[in-house]
């Protein structure tokens, strides 16, 4: 059974890649948030943290933040439920972290007679898994709101729960169209199916076949991350939110969870609507252009290109989500509810009907 050890190694490597990818992106996002907002607003942004005089464009600020958070006092409110209070941030971060597991970052890699799916978890129901993890993440927020023994925290937790239900319903319903078009709940199959060409030249990405679902999913996805413009659970200007009573790294974990959820949402968007790891016209053997030109590439190079394309797409998507976060003002609580239940939800149902009718008419699959 010598193969077992290699298998374990490969499995660990896959998990490690996804973990490190998500964690590092999440950590970097504190820097991206500061710098991108600064550049958008004609400012420079945080650039003062330095080691031996090296500032490297403020990249040390996340490090300084972490040190500050870790050395701060951990405060427990007098009447707080200490177990739930301590558990809540970890629940929040844990589910945000594991949600990325079933998102594929490359095509199945064939090395030395092995088939390695570039995906931490090969799942037949990958989409449902990501949803489950994203919605479970709200339990951490609700626990935080409940256990803090603070009315504002409780209001924040309640708002988070309401927002999450609103967003999840819209996300779930908008995804159904994608699942209908590609005929699978397996993320890998969905991404692979997006490599097909419509009419011989247009990549069959989700944004092409399901443009309405793309907008709905993105809106609901931003709501699921609980960030501006859907930051009612935090609502800095009215209730401070579910983490009022938190300090130190526990507070940092909640912030981190929001960033990780943003990474997950951009990973989802890329996988479902932007072709995942697909590069247009890149086949397993190399580029095959519609104008009858071909560029042969070795299998490993193709895999590297695909992983690179996936990472690039996710980063661009994160940039776009940041752009939205720093452009739009926040919705009021009732506005967000109205948008979710009277806007996104009926539209996504209509999208399902339209998709079904289109599939019936053209029989396309």
């Amino acid at each position, binding site marked *: 059974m010598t193969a077992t050890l290699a298998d374990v190694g490969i499995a660990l490597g896959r998990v490690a890649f996804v973990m490190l990818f998500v964690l590092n992106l999440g950590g970097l996002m504190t820097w991206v948030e500061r710098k*991108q907002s*600064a*550049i*958008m*607003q*004609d*400012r*420079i942004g945080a650039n003062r943290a330095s080691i031996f005089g090296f500032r490297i464009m403020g990249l040390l600020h996340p490090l300084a933040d972490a040190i500050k958070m870790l050395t701060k006092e951990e405060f427990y409110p007098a009447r707080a439920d200490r177990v739930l209070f301590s558990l809540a941030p970890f629940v929040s971060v844990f589910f945000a972290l594991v949600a990325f597991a079933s998102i594929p970052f490359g095509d199945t890699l064939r090395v030395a007679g092995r088939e390695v799916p570039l995906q931490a978890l090969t799942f037949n129901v990958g989409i449902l898994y990501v949803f489950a993890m994203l919605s479970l993440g709200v339990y951490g927020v609700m626990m935080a709101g409940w256990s803090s023994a603070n009315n504002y925290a409780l209001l924040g937790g309640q708002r988070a729960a309401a927002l999450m239900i609103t967003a999840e319903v819209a996300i779930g319903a908008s995804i159904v169209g994608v699942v209908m078009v590609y005929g699978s709940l397996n993320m890998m199959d969905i991404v692979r199916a997006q490599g097909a060409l419509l009419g011989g030249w247009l990549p069959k990405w989700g944004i092409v076949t399901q443009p309405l679902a793309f*907008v709905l999913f993105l809106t609901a996805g931003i709501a699921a991350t609980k960030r501006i413009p859907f930051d009612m659970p935090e609502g800095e200007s009215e209730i401070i939110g579910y983490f009022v009573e938190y300090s130190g790294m526990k507070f940092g974990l909640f912030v981190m969870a929001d960033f990780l959820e943003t990474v997950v949402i951009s990973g989802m968007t890329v996988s479902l609507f932007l072709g995942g790891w697909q590069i247009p016209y890149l086949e397993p053997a190399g580029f095959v252009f519609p104008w009858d030109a071909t560029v042969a590439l070795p299998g490993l190079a193709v895999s590297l290109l695909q992983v690179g394309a996936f990472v690039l797409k996710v980063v661009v998507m994160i940039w776009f989500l940041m*752009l*939205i976060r*720093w*452009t*739009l003002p926040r919705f009021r609580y009732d506005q967000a509810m109205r948008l979710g239940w009277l806007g996104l939800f009926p539209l996504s149902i209509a999208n399902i009907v339209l998709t079904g009718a289109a599939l019936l008419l053209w029989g396309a699959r």
Partner: protein
Amino acid sequence: MKLVQRVYLREVFSGLGLTARHFFRNMGRHVAHALGRKDARGAVTVQYPEERRPYSPRLRSLHRLVRREDGSPRCVACMMCETVCPARCIYIVAAEHPNPEIEKVCREFTIDLGKCVFCGYCVEACPEDAIRMDTGILEFSSYSREGMIYTKEMLLALEPAGPDGRPGSPVPIPPDRTP
């Protein structure tokens, strides 16, 4: 409201277009700056302690006592500034001047900058042009109240600011603040 406005999506995209335009314009300028085009500025930020905006010549900054040609203070201890000071932060002790043509001289001239409101009345009131607020020095914080008290010797040692408003003399560091 019109339907276009109620859908809100068009407004979202026009807003995103505006911020994205700023982002790419500033990003391009930052890159150009890093590549050597030093006139390209991607931000309006002035990096304060290192970079300073030129001060207006009318700026009222830290006081100084004007010297005669022999280096003694021009102040004749007429007490005009002490009288006019609304914050009562000037303390003058007068003494006889060796020159019989000059009636008096200040033996002590102390300003408690912790009380000073920088109104400039002392400068306006002075008949001898002996006190001015043109040093261009604004950073003279201290950890203690005693550190904010400036004596005659300290005020005499200060020079006027240059034409661009830069301080002409080093910022006096109070004894309780080690650099």
